[in-house]
């Protein structure tokens, strides 16, 4: 028995009661204290709260510690290649726009080896939540400097300290046309992280969420070790992400208009220099998704019509005089 689209929609509208177990496969095999645990938990709670059917979720990832994500989430998943999660997500979004797509990458994965795909997929504005778990280090390959590592970072490939200022992913993302959603949160702020994921999940388009996290083994001091002293500032706006300071001792709350690209760029540009912005940095739900744009121009043709059309095309090449 195959399920028709109507059945699918009906099922969608029926009530289910999913608990945390329904989104869990096995205990995650990340290190103790890894930010991945928090991010996974926040995502699972968000899915549960929204009673999302697990079979409709597709989680695509690259390669790296964070890219093990789909293995721990009870959903469909594709654990792809280093840097290449986004092209596979583009394919899934074009093939099955109705599926709920989540792409998970790390900082080296997304910003370095996958940089080209990152830039262009932001521009496609595919309908996917894109989480980058940024711990400022390559961890699975055992401590090499990453594009977001602070200058002077001591790693196995930079034992005398890294040489370059880090890449600012927020500024880069804001420089891409068709950008529709950028938010930043941190793995040691579970409430804020879940609220951020919820807002991103409900966004139609590419919701780019950078999650700051530390690596307890190779970069324990990233972001002040995720301590109460982390220098963050919360962005507040009526359609933004509710402020939830969690453990932070001294985090100012500033008014910010996420619809204003100039304000967003100012916030992003300062992120490394002063306080890291937390919350919704840029938001434009009006930007059309790539699949909506493409399919608005694609004809709906059944088998018979297609066969007829192909036959007509062959006639163009006929040499029958």
């Amino acid at each position: 028995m195959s399920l028709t689209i109507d059945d699918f929609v009906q099922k969608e509208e029926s009530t289910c009661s999913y608990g945390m177990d329904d989104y869990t496969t096995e205990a995650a095999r990340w290190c103790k204290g890894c930010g991945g645990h928090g991010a996974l938990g926040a995502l699972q709670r968000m899915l549960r709260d929204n009673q999302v059917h697990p079979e409709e979720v597709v989680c695509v990832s690259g390669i790296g510690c964070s890219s093990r994500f789909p293995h721990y989430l009870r959903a469909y998943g594709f654990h792809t290649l280093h840097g290449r999660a986004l092209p596979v997500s583009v394919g899934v979004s074009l093939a099955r726009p109705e599926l709920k797509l989540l792409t998970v990458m790390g900082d080296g994965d997304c910003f370095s080896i996958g940089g080209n795909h990152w830039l262009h997929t932001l521009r496609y504005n595919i309908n996917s939540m894109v989480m980058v778990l940024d711990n400022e280090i390559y961890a699975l390959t055992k401590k090499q400097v990453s594009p977001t590592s602070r200058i002077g970072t001591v790693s196995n490939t930079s034992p005398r300290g890294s040489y370059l200022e880090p890449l600012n992913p927020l500024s880069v993302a804001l420089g891409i046309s068709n950008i529709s959603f950028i938010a930043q949160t941190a793995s040691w702020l579970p409430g804020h992280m879940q609220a951020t994921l919820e807002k991103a999940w409900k966004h139609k388009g590419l919701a780019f969420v950078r999650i700051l996290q530390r690596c307890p083994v190779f970069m324990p001091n990233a972001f002040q070790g995720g301590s109460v002293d982390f220098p963050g500032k919360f962005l507040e706006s009526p359609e933004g992400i509710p402020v939830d300071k969690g453990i932070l001792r001294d985090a100012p709350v500033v008014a910010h208009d996420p619809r204003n690209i100039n304000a967003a760029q100012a916030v992003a540009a300062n992120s490394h220099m002063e306080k890291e912005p937390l919350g919704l940095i840029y938001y434009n739900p009006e930007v059309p998704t790539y699949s909506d744009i493409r399919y608005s121009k694609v004809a709906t043709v059944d088998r018979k019509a297609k066969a007829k059309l192909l036959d007509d095309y062959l006639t163009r090449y006929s040499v029958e005089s």
Partner: protein
Amino acid sequence: MKEPIQLKEHIVEIVSDAGEGAQKAGTTFAELCAKSGNGLWTVEIIPSEIQPPPHTVGSASGNRIRLSSRPVTNGGDLTNLVVAFNEMALLSRIQVGALAPDVIVIIDNMWATHADPQICKQYREVLDSLSTQGGQVWELPIDAACAKVTDDSAKGKNMFIVGMLSCLYNKDLEVAKSFVRGIFAKKPPAVIQKNMDLIEAGYVFGMNHFSQTFVVAPVKGLPEQVAMNGNTAIALGSIAAGYELCSMYPITPATSASHELAAFFEDFGGLVHQAEDEIAAVGVAIGSNWAGKPALTITSGPGMALKTEFLGLTVMTETPLVCVNVQRGGPSTGLPTKVEQGDLLNALFASPGDAPKVVMAPSSIEECYHIMPLARKISEEFRALVIVLSDANLATGRQLFARPKVVEDMLTTPLDLSPVEAGAKPFDWDLETGLSQRILPGRPNGMWVATGLNHNEAGKINYLAESNQKGMTMRSRKLAVLQSTLKAPEIFGEAEGDLLIVGWGSTRGAIWEAVERAQAEGLRVSAMNIQFISPLPPGIKAAFQKFKKVMTVELNYCDRMGDPYITEENRRYAQLAIILRANTLVDVDCWGMVPGRPLMPCEVHGVIRQEIQALKTKKGI
């Protein structure tokens, strides 16, 4: 005018500076010949730059048309007649050795009196040298005659030439005019009229200047024919195969297949996605197939190199994928617009680790169409990667073939989104065959994760020796199962004899034509074309053993015995020869070259004669 000379066939070239219209003139004339029932194969003459310096050999651009009174399978031998817009375009064709010794050259005589004495001199030198070697030169005031009809003779010359050639080959002027009217149908009436005037003027010009004309009789009694190039055939074949997404990145000579699709795919409910790079192009296709929408990717050699890691992921996750490689000259950027069969070993083996896949090669433009539904079918039934190796010869050549019959079977199949049984596994391998069922995302109870890591039947990551051995075995077994369904390749000629020539891909036409000539001379030679190179079809070794000698003829590089330092120990064989030697343990020899143009039957014929002579001499000793 004398009675026209009746010819079985003629090879005609039209060459000009890039952008001067020889390509348009050539394709139009070819189309006209096809309509009048001639067998046909056309080859594009393309410079590598868009606007190379004019009036140089590097600027030569045009079309080569083999016209015949029988069906044609390849571009043929040396050119019999050239229409050259200038002497440098002509010189470029002399330099590549494309012209027959007794070639007829029709050339614009305006260069003889050009203001630049250097041009006059080189014009005279080129023509004199050609005449001394047996060529006939017809110097005619083409530009001047053309200028009488149009203000811009540079722009109008193409249709003038079409008219002139129509006269030379005794094509009906009215048919030619109505055909060209069709080409310009969407243009304003004044433009149409101008082109009608040009054709007519060209025709009259021919009547006034040609002392001799030709007739190549039409082929009789064929079913309805279509004429297209191999990339168009791949594009239309992809539609016939039910593909709904073509994910690609621009690369020569593959791109025109995607152009063709881009022009009409949306009408069929499909789309072309031009990705940000070659890697993304294949990634998108894999994502789409995994999610259930049939997608393919089309590229050329350098693109294949970039896609390698993803192709391995396809194999590992058993995601169906067809990847077309329209081969060009390599290595590196090589000869981007020219033909070579240099990517066979890349297709077979490029991958981290062992990644068994299907590799097939169409041997004609007709097969470019029909191979696509077959490739998709195999990719889905076997959850396999299928690499289709076309090449620049097929891509840009045009051939006539029987109009394909459209079948609905593979078009728009609805997705199965029903719940799967609890415990169903995404790699529930049948231990005999390695086959397993796909579970598409969206099906309740079916949640699984595709991964490039070694995994067990449930798709779970597994590092144990036993599991890795099993996964490898299952993926490899599928090829053996496919092999068991294949037929032994046809032998062209007797099943036993002195020499068997084995080829693959686009060289079939030239090889078989050469073999046919040699057979007519009484030589005991046969030919075989191998369509499936992975897995190899059954019966090859048995077939080889019926011949005294087996050798491949390929358009890729191989060392030649007798060259400095080359010994039996260190000789690098042509690519198919390596595979056949390894698989059959037969001492398969090879003959290969990399001229950047299709093989000519006369070349292969020469090889056959030489080999058979050598066999006889050896026997004598």
